[in-house]
C-alpha cells in the first residue's frame, strides 16, 4: 500500500472517529471555539484599542500664537517651511477672523463674554498655527524648536511668535498611558493565548484518555505509532476547522452590535467594517491557530500511550 493510500486511511479513520463520537467531538469543538473566541477577541480588541488611541492622538496638537501685527504672508511662509519638516504631519492655519468666529461659537451661551468682546471694538485674538506631529514623542522637540526659534529661522523677526502652547504635560501623560496600555495589551494577549492552548490541550487529553482502551487494542493488533496517532491528529484538525467556522460566523453579529453601541463614543471606530474588511485574514489566522492547537494537543496527549513497556 503506498503513502497516499495510507494518508487516505488515516483521514478516513479520523473522520469516522469525529463523526461517530458525537458527544466527545462536541465537547472538544466547544472548548476549541472558546479558545479561538479569545484569540479573535484579542485581535479585535487590539484594533479597537489602537483606533481609540489614534483618535486621542489626533486630538493632540501644538498651538503657535502669533503677535497681533504678524502678517499673514509671513505666517503662511512659516507654515510652508514647517510642512517640509519630517517630524510634522500636518499644520493648520487659523486666521484672526476664523479665531474670532471659533470664539463666538464656543461662547455662544455666554452673553457677558460676547458683549465684552463687542465693547472692545477690535479683534483681540491672534492668528495661530495648529501643528500635529508624526508621532507622540516628537511633540516635545517641536515645541522646543518653536520656542527657541531653531525651527522658525532667522528670517522671521523676534516677537513674531507670541506664544507656543504645547500641552506638554498632557502629551507626556498620554504618551505614558498609550505605551502602558499597549504593553498591557501584549501581555494580556500572550496570557490569553497560553490559556487557550492549555484549555484545548487538557480537553483533547481527556478525549484521548477516553480512547485509551482503543489505543491499547490498536497496539495489540500491531498498529504502529504513526497509525495510532494519525487519526487523533486528524480529529484535532477537524476540531480546529469546525471551531474556526463557528467562531468567525459568531463575530458578525458581535462586531455589528459593538459598532452600533460604540461608534459615537470612541471617535468613529467601526469594528464591523474592520472585521468584514479583514475577514479572510482573520479567518486564516484562526484556522491556523485552531489546527495547530488541535494537532499539537493530540500529538502530546496520545504520546504517553504509545510507549511500549
Amino acid at each position, binding site marked *: 500500500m503506498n503513502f497516499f*493510500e495510507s494518508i487516505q486511511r488515516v483521514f478516513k479513520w479520523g473522520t469516522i472517529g469525529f463523526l461517530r463520537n458525537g458527544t466527545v467531538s462536541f465537547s472538544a469543538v466547544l472548548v476549541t471555539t472558546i479558545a479561538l473566541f479569545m484569540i479573535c477577541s484579542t485581535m479585535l480588541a487590539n484594533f479597537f484599542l489602537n483606533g481609540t488611541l489614534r483618535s486621542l492622538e489626533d486630538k493632540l496638537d501644538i498651538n503657535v500664537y502669533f503677535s497681533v501685527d504678524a502678517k499673514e504672508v509671513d505666517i503662511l511662509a512659516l507654515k510652508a517651511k514647517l510642512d517640509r519638516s519630517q517630524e510634522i504631519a500636518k499644520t493648520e492655519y487659523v486666521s484672526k477672523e476664523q479665531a474670532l468666529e471659533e470664539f463666538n461659537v464656543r461662547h455662544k451661551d455666554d452673553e457677558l463674554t460676547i458683549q465684552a468682546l463687542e465693547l472692545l471694538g477690535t479683534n483681540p485674538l491672534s492668528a495661530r498655527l495648529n501643528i500635529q506631529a508624526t508621532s507622540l514623542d516628537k511633540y516635545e522637540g517641536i515645541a522646543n524648536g518653536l520656542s527657541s526659534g531653531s525651527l522658525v529661522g532667522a528670517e522671521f523677526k523676534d516677537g513674531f511668535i507670541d506664544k507656543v502652547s504645547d500641552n506638554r504635560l498632557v502629551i507626556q501623560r498620554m504618551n505614558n498611558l498609550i505605551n502602558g496600555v499597549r504593553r498591557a495589551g501584549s501581555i494580556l494577549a500572550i496570557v490569553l493565548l497560553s490559556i487557550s492552548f492549555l484549555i484545548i490541550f487538557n480537553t483533547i487529553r481527556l478525549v484521548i484518555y477516553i480512547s485509551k482502551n*482503543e489505543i491499547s487494542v*490498536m497496539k495489540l*493488533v*500491531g498498529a*504502529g505509532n504513526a497509525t495510532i496517532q494519525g487519526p487523533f491528529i486528524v480529529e484535532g484538525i477537524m476540531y480546529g476547522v469546525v471551531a474556526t467556522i463557528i467562531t468567525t460566523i459568531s463575530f458578525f453579529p458581535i462586531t455589528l452590535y459593538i459598532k452600533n453601541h460604540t461608534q459615537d463614543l470612541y471617535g468613529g471606530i467601526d469594528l464591523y467594517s474592520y472585521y468584514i474588511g479583514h475577514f479572510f485574514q482573520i479567518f486564516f489566522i484562526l484556522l491556523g491557530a485552531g489546527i495547530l492547537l488541535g494537532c499539537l494537543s493530540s500529538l502530546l496527549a496520545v504520546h504517553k500511550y504509545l510507549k*511500549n513497556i
Partner: protein
Amino acid sequence: MIFFDKVTKKYSDDSFGLNEVTLSIQPGEFVSIVGHSGAGKTTLLKMLLIEDRPTSGNVFFESVDIHNLRSREITMYRRRIGTVFQDFRLLPDRTTYENIAFAMEVIGRPDSEIENDVPHVLDLVDLSTKAWHFPHELSGGERQRVAIARAIINQPDLLIADEPTGNLDPVNTYEIVQVLKRINDMGTTVLLTTHNKGVIDSLERRVITMKQGTIIGDDPKGKTTMM
C-alpha cells in the same frame, strides 16, 4: 515455538505473579492454561504479549528473546499474534466489518484484499448477517466471535485467548470453543486460558495447570487437575 525460561515476575518480597516458570509450546499445539484467579495465567500471557516485563528469566518466540526487541520490532512481532480477551476489546465506534478490517489496515493490506478476506472470515465465525452492526448491537457471543475473526484475519502464527468464554453463557461458550478448535485444526497454535472445567474436559488437548505463579501440572491429553 514458545519457550519460557525460568520466568519470574515479582511484585514484592512475598508476592509473585510468576515464579520460575519454564514452559515450552510447539507449533500447531492447542494448549489450555488453567488455574484459579491469581494463579498467574494472565501474567503469563502479558509476558508473551510484551505488556509486562519479567523480573528475571527470558521469553523466546521462535528463538528470539522478545523482551529485547526494539519498539518497531515489537509492533511487527504483535502482528504475528492474534489475541482474544474476556472483555472482547472491540473498537466501539466501528462496525463488525470495520473492526475485522482494521487488523488488516494497520499492516497495510490493500482495500482489494480486505474486501476479499473479511467476508470469508465472517463466514467462518458465522457473522455474515451482522457485518454492519456496531458492537453494542451484538450479543456477548457475537462480540467474541468478532474478536476471534479480528484475531485470525491476518493468519497469525499464534492465537492467544484469555478467558474468552468468561462472560458467556454455556451455549455461546461451546460455540466459541468449537471455533477455536477449527482454527487450530487449520494449523494455528492456540493458547487458551480458562477456569472453566467443562471447556477443558471437552477439548482433550494439552492442559497446563498453574497455582500461585508456578506450574503444578502439564497433561498432554488433559483433564483439569485444579480444585
